[in-house]
Protein backbone atom coordinates (compact mmCIF):
# COMPACT_ATOMS: atom_id res chain seq x y z
CA UNK A 1 0.00 0.00 0.00
CA UNK A 2 1.30 3.45 -0.93
CA UNK A 3 0.80 5.83 1.97
CA UNK A 4 1.55 9.05 0.14
CA UNK A 5 -1.82 10.65 -0.63
CA UNK A 6 -3.75 8.26 1.58
CA UNK A 7 -6.02 9.97 4.13
CA UNK A 8 -4.37 10.08 7.58
CA UNK A 9 -7.14 8.09 9.23
CA UNK A 10 -6.71 5.27 6.72
CA UNK A 11 -2.92 5.39 6.95
CA UNK A 12 -3.05 5.18 10.72
CA UNK A 13 -5.50 2.30 10.66
CA UNK A 14 -3.41 0.41 8.12
CA UNK A 15 -0.10 0.89 9.92
CA UNK A 16 -1.61 0.20 13.32
CA UNK A 17 -3.01 -3.06 12.01
CA UNK A 18 0.48 -4.02 10.83
CA UNK A 19 1.92 -3.35 14.28
CA UNK A 20 -0.82 -5.36 15.93
CA UNK A 21 -0.44 -8.29 13.55
CA UNK A 22 3.28 -8.39 12.89
CA UNK A 23 4.93 -6.44 15.67
CA UNK A 24 6.07 -7.92 18.95
CA UNK A 25 3.65 -8.18 21.85
CA UNK A 26 5.36 -5.27 23.54
CA UNK A 27 5.06 -3.10 20.44
CA UNK A 28 1.40 -3.96 20.02
CA UNK A 29 0.69 -3.30 23.68
CA UNK A 30 2.54 0.00 23.51
CA UNK A 31 0.55 1.14 20.53
CA UNK A 32 -2.71 0.23 22.25
CA UNK A 33 -1.60 2.29 25.22
CA UNK A 34 -1.00 5.26 22.98
CA UNK A 35 2.80 5.12 22.88
CA UNK A 36 4.60 6.48 19.88
CA UNK A 37 5.61 3.68 17.51
CA UNK A 38 7.59 3.74 14.29
CA UNK A 39 6.85 1.47 11.36
CA UNK A 40 9.29 0.82 8.53
CA UNK A 41 7.67 -0.24 5.28
CA UNK A 42 10.32 -1.72 3.03
CA UNK A 43 10.11 -2.16 -0.70
CA UNK A 44 12.66 -4.71 -1.77
CA UNK A 45 15.35 -2.89 -3.75
CA UNK A 46 18.62 -4.09 -5.21
CA UNK A 47 21.77 -2.77 -3.57
CA UNK A 48 22.99 -2.11 -7.11
CA UNK A 49 20.27 0.42 -7.93
CA UNK A 50 21.14 4.12 -8.26
CA UNK A 51 24.83 3.27 -8.82
CA UNK A 52 24.91 1.57 -5.46
CA UNK A 53 24.01 4.71 -3.51
CA UNK A 54 20.72 3.39 -2.17
CA UNK A 55 17.17 4.49 -2.90
CA UNK A 56 14.70 6.36 -0.72
CA UNK A 57 11.83 4.13 -1.76
CA UNK A 58 10.83 2.89 1.68
CA UNK A 59 8.59 4.62 4.21
CA UNK A 60 9.19 5.37 7.84
CA UNK A 61 5.88 6.02 9.54
CA UNK A 62 5.55 7.70 12.91
CA UNK A 63 2.37 6.61 14.66
CA UNK A 64 1.24 8.62 17.62
CA UNK A 65 -1.82 7.22 19.34
CA UNK A 66 -1.55 9.36 22.44
CA UNK A 67 -4.87 10.51 23.93
CA UNK A 68 -6.78 9.38 20.91
CA UNK A 69 -4.66 11.56 18.66
CA UNK A 70 -4.01 8.81 16.11
CA UNK A 71 -1.73 10.98 14.04
CA UNK A 72 0.47 9.58 11.33
CA UNK A 73 3.51 11.10 9.66
CA UNK A 74 5.14 9.44 6.67
CA UNK A 75 8.75 10.03 5.65
CA UNK A 76 10.80 8.69 2.77
CA UNK A 77 13.50 6.34 3.98
CA UNK A 78 16.11 3.83 2.96
CA UNK A 79 16.30 0.57 4.90
CA UNK A 80 18.77 -1.31 2.72
CA UNK A 81 22.47 -0.82 2.10
CA UNK A 82 23.92 0.55 -1.10
CA UNK A 83 26.53 -1.45 -2.99
CA UNK A 84 28.87 1.54 -2.79
CA UNK A 85 30.12 -0.07 0.41
CA UNK A 86 30.52 -3.55 -1.08
CA UNK A 87 33.86 -5.29 -1.45
CA UNK A 88 32.52 -6.65 -4.72
CA UNK A 89 32.44 -3.13 -6.16
CA UNK A 90 36.08 -2.39 -5.43
CA UNK A 91 38.13 -1.66 -8.55
CA UNK A 92 40.94 -4.13 -9.23
CA UNK A 93 44.37 -3.44 -10.68
CA UNK A 94 43.63 -5.27 -13.90
CA UNK A 95 40.57 -3.08 -14.50
CA UNK A 96 36.98 -3.79 -13.69
CA UNK A 97 35.71 -4.78 -10.28
CA UNK A 98 36.11 -7.63 -7.84
CA UNK A 99 32.71 -8.76 -9.13
CA UNK A 100 31.88 -7.74 -12.73
CA UNK A 101 28.20 -7.39 -11.82
CA UNK A 102 29.19 -4.28 -9.85
CA UNK A 103 30.67 -2.38 -12.80
CA UNK A 104 28.02 0.34 -12.57
CA UNK A 105 28.50 1.02 -8.87
CA UNK A 106 30.25 4.14 -7.61
CA UNK A 107 32.54 2.44 -5.11
CA UNK A 108 33.25 4.18 -1.84
CA UNK A 109 34.59 1.93 0.91
CA UNK A 110 34.36 -1.67 2.04
CA UNK A 111 31.94 -2.63 4.78
CA UNK A 112 30.16 -5.83 5.77
CA UNK A 113 30.73 -9.26 7.29
CA UNK A 114 31.84 -12.48 5.64
CA UNK A 115 29.21 -14.90 6.87
CA UNK A 116 29.71 -17.68 4.33
CA UNK A 117 33.49 -17.90 4.45
CA UNK A 118 34.18 -17.06 0.81
CA UNK A 119 36.56 -14.22 1.64
CA UNK A 120 34.10 -11.53 0.56
CA UNK A 121 32.46 -9.20 3.07
CA UNK A 122 28.71 -9.42 2.58
CA UNK A 123 26.41 -6.40 2.66
CA UNK A 124 23.70 -6.61 5.29
CA UNK A 125 20.24 -5.23 5.85
CA UNK A 126 18.18 -5.23 9.02
CA UNK A 127 15.89 -8.24 9.13
CA UNK A 128 12.19 -7.49 9.39
CA UNK A 129 10.97 -7.56 12.99
CA UNK A 130 10.55 -5.43 16.07
CA UNK A 131 13.44 -3.59 17.67
CA UNK A 132 13.42 -1.30 20.71
CA UNK A 133 15.38 1.84 19.87
CA UNK A 134 16.73 4.57 22.13
CA UNK A 135 18.15 7.96 21.38
CA UNK A 136 21.93 7.81 21.25
CA UNK A 137 23.57 9.91 23.95
CA UNK A 138 26.04 12.38 22.52
CA UNK A 139 24.40 12.41 19.09
CA UNK A 140 25.56 10.86 15.89
CA UNK A 141 26.82 12.72 12.85
CA UNK A 142 26.09 15.94 14.75
CA UNK A 143 22.38 15.19 15.04
CA UNK A 144 19.97 13.12 17.06
CA UNK A 145 20.02 9.44 16.09
CA UNK A 146 18.65 6.19 17.45
CA UNK A 147 20.27 2.86 18.28
CA UNK A 148 18.76 -0.51 19.10
CA UNK A 149 18.94 -1.56 22.72
CA UNK A 150 19.40 -5.21 21.82
CA UNK A 151 21.31 -7.16 19.20
CA UNK A 152 19.91 -6.86 15.73
CA UNK A 153 19.53 -9.57 13.14
CA UNK A 154 21.00 -8.91 9.72
CA UNK A 155 20.33 -10.55 6.40
CA UNK A 156 23.43 -10.80 4.22
CA UNK A 157 23.64 -10.82 0.45
CA UNK A 158 26.04 -13.74 0.31
CA UNK A 159 25.69 -14.45 -3.42
CA UNK A 160 26.21 -10.83 -4.33
CA UNK A 161 23.17 -10.46 -6.57
CA UNK A 162 22.09 -7.30 -4.76
CA UNK A 163 19.11 -8.98 -3.09
CA UNK A 164 18.50 -10.50 0.32
CA UNK A 165 16.50 -13.68 -0.11
CA UNK A 166 16.45 -17.44 0.09
CA UNK A 167 19.04 -17.76 -2.65
CA UNK A 168 21.66 -16.40 -0.24
CA UNK A 169 23.19 -19.30 1.69
CA UNK A 170 23.73 -18.56 5.38
CA UNK A 171 22.12 -15.16 4.98
CA UNK A 172 20.86 -14.82 8.54
CA UNK A 173 23.53 -13.16 10.64
CA UNK A 174 22.82 -13.08 14.36
CA UNK A 175 26.15 -11.64 15.49
CA UNK A 176 27.75 -9.41 12.90
CA UNK A 177 25.55 -6.37 13.20
CA UNK A 178 25.46 -6.00 16.96
CA UNK A 179 23.42 -2.85 17.54
CA UNK A 180 24.98 -0.97 14.65
CA UNK A 181 21.97 -0.52 12.37
CA UNK A 182 20.89 2.91 13.50
CA UNK A 183 18.19 5.32 12.45
CA UNK A 184 20.06 8.42 11.35
CA UNK A 185 20.09 11.22 8.82
CA UNK A 186 21.01 10.38 5.25
CA UNK A 187 22.03 12.43 2.27
CA UNK A 188 19.52 14.94 0.96
CA UNK A 189 17.17 13.66 -1.70
CA UNK A 190 18.64 15.97 -4.36
CA UNK A 191 22.07 14.37 -3.92
CA UNK A 192 20.60 10.89 -4.35
CA UNK A 193 22.87 9.21 -1.82
CA UNK A 194 21.17 7.54 1.13
CA UNK A 195 24.34 6.84 3.17
CA UNK A 196 22.97 3.49 4.26
CA UNK A 197 25.28 0.56 4.85
CA UNK A 198 22.40 -1.18 6.61
CA UNK A 199 21.04 1.69 8.69
CA UNK A 200 17.58 3.15 8.35
CA UNK A 201 18.16 6.60 6.91
CA UNK A 202 15.83 9.53 6.37
CA UNK A 203 16.92 12.24 3.91
CA UNK A 204 18.47 15.17 5.67
CA UNK A 205 16.04 17.61 4.08
CA UNK A 206 13.22 15.74 5.86
CA UNK A 207 15.13 14.73 8.96
CA UNK A 208 14.21 17.80 10.99
CA UNK A 209 10.53 17.12 10.41
CA UNK A 210 11.06 13.47 11.32
CA UNK A 211 12.70 14.44 14.61
CA UNK A 212 9.96 16.97 15.31
CA UNK A 213 7.35 14.26 14.86
CA UNK A 214 9.09 12.25 17.59
CA UNK A 215 9.21 15.11 20.06
CA UNK A 216 11.61 14.44 22.94
CA UNK A 217 10.81 10.77 23.18
CA UNK A 218 13.84 8.68 24.16
CA UNK A 219 12.73 5.13 23.34
CA UNK A 220 10.28 3.58 20.91
CA UNK A 221 9.51 0.33 19.16
CA UNK A 222 10.49 0.13 15.53
CA UNK A 223 8.52 -2.43 13.55
CA UNK A 224 10.15 -3.16 10.20
CA UNK A 225 7.98 -4.90 7.64
CA UNK A 226 8.99 -6.31 4.29
CA UNK A 227 6.62 -5.37 1.51
CA UNK A 228 6.48 -6.10 -2.16
Amino acid at each position, binding site marked *: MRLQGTPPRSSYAYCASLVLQRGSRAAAAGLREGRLTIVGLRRDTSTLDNKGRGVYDDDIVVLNGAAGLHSVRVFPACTE*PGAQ*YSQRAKPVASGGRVDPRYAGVTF*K*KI*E*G*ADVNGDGI*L*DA*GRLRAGTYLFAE*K*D*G*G*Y*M*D*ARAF*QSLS*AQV*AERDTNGDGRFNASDPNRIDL*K*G*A*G*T*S*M*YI*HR*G*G*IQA*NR*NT*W*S*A*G*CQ*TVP*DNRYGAFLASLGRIKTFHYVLIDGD
Partner: protein
Amino acid sequence: MATDRTFKPAFRALAALVALTWAGTALASSPTSARSQCEIGAFVQETDPAGLNVRAAPNAKAKILGKLLPVHVDPEQGYRTRAEVEVVASDNGWFLIRNARDNADMTGQPERPMYKGEGWVSGSRLIVKSQANVGRAAPLASAPEVLRFRDGDTFDSSAMMDGGRLAACMGKWAQVEFSEGRLPAEIREKLQVSPPARQGLPAGRFRAWVDKICDLQETSCSGLGGDAP
Protein backbone atom coordinates in the same frame (compact mmCIF):
# COMPACT_ATOMS: atom_id res chain seq x y z
CA MET B 1 31.70 13.43 36.13
CA ALA B 2 33.55 10.32 35.06
CA THR B 3 34.01 7.83 37.82
CA ASP B 4 36.69 5.29 38.60
CA ARG B 5 36.13 1.62 39.12
CA THR B 6 38.06 -0.27 41.75
CA PHE B 7 40.13 -3.11 40.34
CA LYS B 8 41.33 -6.02 42.41
CA PRO B 9 45.10 -6.56 42.79
CA ALA B 10 45.06 -9.71 40.66
CA PHE B 11 43.34 -7.79 37.91
CA ARG B 12 45.98 -5.07 38.13
CA ALA B 13 48.75 -7.66 37.88
CA LEU B 14 47.17 -9.15 34.81
CA ALA B 15 46.89 -5.69 33.29
CA ALA B 16 50.57 -5.03 33.91
CA LEU B 17 51.54 -8.39 32.42
CA VAL B 18 49.52 -7.78 29.29
CA ALA B 19 50.89 -4.26 28.96
CA LEU B 20 54.46 -5.51 29.29
CA THR B 21 53.86 -8.26 26.76
CA TRP B 22 52.41 -5.78 24.36
CA ALA B 23 55.24 -3.31 24.89
CA GLY B 24 57.76 -6.05 24.22
CA THR B 25 56.03 -6.95 20.99
CA ALA B 26 55.90 -3.34 19.89
CA LEU B 27 59.56 -2.73 20.63
CA ALA B 28 60.55 -5.96 18.95
CA SER B 29 59.10 -4.67 15.70
CA SER B 30 61.26 -1.54 15.80
CA PRO B 31 64.63 -1.31 17.55
CA THR B 32 64.65 2.49 17.66
CA SER B 33 61.22 3.55 18.82
CA ALA B 34 57.71 2.51 19.81
CA ARG B 35 56.65 2.39 16.18
CA SER B 36 53.87 -0.06 15.45
CA GLN B 37 51.96 -1.05 12.36
CA CYS B 38 48.22 -0.74 12.07
CA GLU B 39 45.36 -0.66 9.62
CA ILE B 40 42.57 1.68 10.66
CA GLY B 41 40.61 4.61 9.27
CA ALA B 42 40.69 7.99 11.00
CA PHE B 43 39.28 11.48 10.52
CA VAL B 44 41.10 14.80 10.61
CA GLN B 45 39.93 17.05 13.44
CA GLU B 46 41.73 20.20 12.33
CA THR B 47 40.01 23.55 12.71
CA ASP B 48 42.90 25.74 11.54
CA PRO B 49 41.83 27.02 8.10
CA ALA B 50 45.39 26.47 6.91
CA GLY B 51 44.92 22.73 7.35
CA LEU B 52 47.04 20.03 8.96
CA ASN B 53 50.68 19.55 8.02
CA VAL B 54 51.78 16.18 6.69
CA ARG B 55 55.44 15.65 7.43
CA ALA B 56 58.24 13.44 6.17
CA ALA B 57 59.07 12.07 9.63
CA PRO B 58 57.27 11.69 12.96
CA ASN B 59 58.27 15.00 14.50
CA ALA B 60 57.23 18.64 14.31
CA LYS B 61 60.47 19.74 12.67
CA ALA B 62 60.39 17.35 9.74
CA LYS B 63 59.87 18.58 6.20
CA ILE B 64 56.28 19.42 5.29
CA LEU B 65 55.06 17.26 2.41
CA GLY B 66 51.56 18.67 2.10
CA LYS B 67 48.37 19.62 3.89
CA LEU B 68 45.16 17.92 4.92
CA LEU B 69 41.90 19.83 4.80
CA PRO B 70 40.38 21.34 7.92
CA VAL B 71 36.92 20.37 9.11
CA HIS B 72 34.16 21.55 6.80
CA VAL B 73 31.20 23.01 8.70
CA ASP B 74 27.82 23.21 7.02
CA PRO B 75 26.79 26.87 7.33
CA GLU B 76 23.11 26.08 7.88
CA GLN B 77 23.05 22.95 10.01
CA GLY B 78 26.48 23.04 11.59
CA TYR B 79 27.19 19.48 10.47
CA ARG B 80 30.89 18.73 10.28
CA THR B 81 32.69 16.80 7.58
CA ARG B 82 36.27 15.76 8.16
CA ALA B 83 39.00 14.62 5.82
CA GLU B 84 39.37 10.83 5.92
CA VAL B 85 42.73 9.04 6.08
CA GLU B 86 44.10 5.53 6.27
CA VAL B 87 46.46 5.09 9.22
CA VAL B 88 49.18 2.47 8.76
CA ALA B 89 51.63 3.11 11.62
CA SER B 90 52.17 5.08 14.79
CA ASP B 91 55.29 6.41 16.45
CA ASN B 92 55.20 8.34 19.72
CA GLY B 93 51.95 10.13 19.04
CA TRP B 94 52.58 10.58 15.32
CA PHE B 95 50.77 8.60 12.65
CA LEU B 96 51.75 7.51 9.18
CA ILE B 97 48.77 8.21 6.94
CA ARG B 98 47.92 7.87 3.26
CA ASN B 99 45.08 8.12 0.74
CA ALA B 100 43.49 11.18 2.33
CA ARG B 101 40.16 12.14 0.82
CA ASP B 102 37.38 14.60 1.20
CA ASN B 103 33.80 13.39 1.59
CA ALA B 104 31.91 15.25 -1.11
CA ASP B 105 28.73 13.31 -0.38
CA MET B 106 28.63 14.93 3.03
CA THR B 107 29.76 18.43 2.15
CA GLY B 108 27.49 18.56 -0.89
CA GLN B 109 30.31 20.26 -2.77
CA PRO B 110 32.91 19.06 -5.25
CA GLU B 111 35.73 17.12 -3.63
CA ARG B 112 38.37 19.50 -2.34
CA PRO B 113 41.95 18.72 -3.34
CA MET B 114 44.52 17.85 -0.73
CA TYR B 115 47.72 15.88 -0.24
CA LYS B 116 47.03 12.19 -0.77
CA GLY B 117 50.46 10.64 -0.37
CA GLU B 118 52.09 9.05 2.66
CA GLY B 119 53.35 11.13 5.52
CA TRP B 120 53.22 11.73 9.25
CA VAL B 121 50.64 13.76 11.14
CA SER B 122 50.16 14.48 14.81
CA GLY B 123 47.63 12.34 16.65
CA SER B 124 46.40 15.46 18.39
CA ARG B 125 44.43 16.16 15.20
CA LEU B 126 43.16 12.65 14.49
CA ILE B 127 40.00 11.01 15.78
CA VAL B 128 38.43 7.61 15.26
CA LYS B 129 34.92 6.19 15.41
CA SER B 130 34.88 3.02 17.48
CA GLN B 131 31.74 0.92 17.67
CA ALA B 132 33.16 -0.98 20.65
CA ASN B 133 31.53 -0.69 24.04
CA VAL B 134 34.62 -1.69 25.99
CA GLY B 135 38.00 0.02 26.15
CA ARG B 136 40.98 -2.09 27.19
CA ALA B 137 44.43 -1.67 28.75
CA ALA B 138 46.18 -3.16 25.74
CA PRO B 139 45.30 -3.97 22.13
CA LEU B 140 44.08 -7.45 22.91
CA ALA B 141 40.54 -8.74 23.29
CA SER B 142 41.66 -10.49 26.46
CA ALA B 143 43.28 -7.41 28.00
CA PRO B 144 41.70 -5.92 31.12
CA GLU B 145 38.77 -3.62 30.67
CA VAL B 146 39.46 0.02 31.55
CA LEU B 147 36.57 1.91 30.00
CA ARG B 148 32.87 1.28 29.60
CA PHE B 149 29.52 3.03 29.71
CA ARG B 150 27.19 2.01 32.51
CA ASP B 151 24.42 1.36 29.99
CA GLY B 152 26.58 -0.57 27.53
CA ASP B 153 26.51 2.20 24.93
CA THR B 154 29.08 2.18 22.15
CA PHE B 155 31.84 4.78 21.74
CA ASP B 156 30.81 6.07 18.31
CA SER B 157 28.72 9.09 19.25
CA SER B 158 29.66 12.56 18.05
CA ALA B 159 30.48 13.49 21.63
CA MET B 160 32.88 10.60 22.15
CA MET B 161 34.58 11.27 18.84
CA ASP B 162 35.01 14.92 19.80
CA GLY B 163 36.34 13.98 23.23
CA GLY B 164 39.12 11.69 22.08
CA ARG B 165 42.36 11.97 20.15
CA LEU B 166 44.43 9.20 18.64
CA ALA B 167 47.37 8.26 20.89
CA ALA B 168 48.64 5.03 19.31
CA CYS B 169 47.55 2.21 17.06
CA MET B 170 48.34 -1.45 16.54
CA GLY B 171 46.74 -3.82 14.08
CA LYS B 172 43.07 -2.94 13.99
CA TRP B 173 43.18 -1.31 17.42
CA ALA B 174 43.43 2.36 18.33
CA GLN B 175 44.50 3.85 21.61
CA VAL B 176 42.40 6.94 22.26
CA GLU B 177 43.15 9.61 24.82
CA PHE B 178 40.00 11.25 26.10
CA SER B 179 39.76 14.63 27.77
CA GLU B 180 36.91 15.02 30.22
CA GLY B 181 36.80 18.70 29.45
CA ARG B 182 35.65 17.88 25.94
CA LEU B 183 32.95 15.44 27.02
CA PRO B 184 29.44 16.65 27.82
CA ALA B 185 28.11 16.04 31.30
CA GLU B 186 25.67 13.30 30.28
CA ILE B 187 28.52 11.34 28.75
CA ARG B 188 30.90 11.85 31.69
CA GLU B 189 28.24 10.76 34.13
CA LYS B 190 27.80 7.34 32.62
CA LEU B 191 31.45 6.58 31.83
CA GLN B 192 33.24 4.08 34.02
CA VAL B 193 36.98 4.71 33.92
CA SER B 194 39.39 2.46 35.78
CA PRO B 195 42.51 3.89 37.49
CA PRO B 196 45.01 2.31 35.04
CA ALA B 197 43.42 4.34 32.25
CA ARG B 198 44.50 7.55 34.02
CA GLN B 199 47.97 6.42 35.00
CA GLY B 200 50.71 8.85 33.95
CA LEU B 201 48.30 11.33 32.42
CA PRO B 202 47.31 14.85 33.50
CA ALA B 203 44.15 15.14 35.59
CA GLY B 204 40.98 14.79 33.57
CA ARG B 205 42.53 12.58 30.91
CA PHE B 206 42.41 8.85 30.33
CA ARG B 207 43.36 6.38 27.64
CA ALA B 208 41.89 3.15 26.36
CA TRP B 209 42.48 0.75 23.50
CA VAL B 210 39.41 0.24 21.33
CA ASP B 211 38.65 -1.93 18.33
CA LYS B 212 35.70 -2.09 15.93
CA ILE B 213 36.91 1.04 14.20
CA CYS B 214 34.42 2.19 11.58
CA ASP B 215 35.95 4.29 8.83
CA LEU B 216 32.63 5.41 7.38
CA GLN B 217 31.86 8.97 8.35
CA GLU B 218 28.35 9.15 6.95
CA THR B 219 26.97 5.98 8.50
CA SER B 220 27.83 3.10 10.79
CA CYS B 221 29.51 -0.20 9.96
CA SER B 222 27.19 -3.19 10.12
CA GLY B 223 29.79 -5.95 10.04
CA LEU B 224 32.09 -5.30 12.97
CA GLY B 225 30.42 -7.73 15.29
CA GLY B 226 28.32 -7.51 18.38
CA ASP B 227 29.31 -5.93 21.61
CA ALA B 228 30.99 -7.66 24.48
CA PRO B 229 28.53 -8.68 27.18
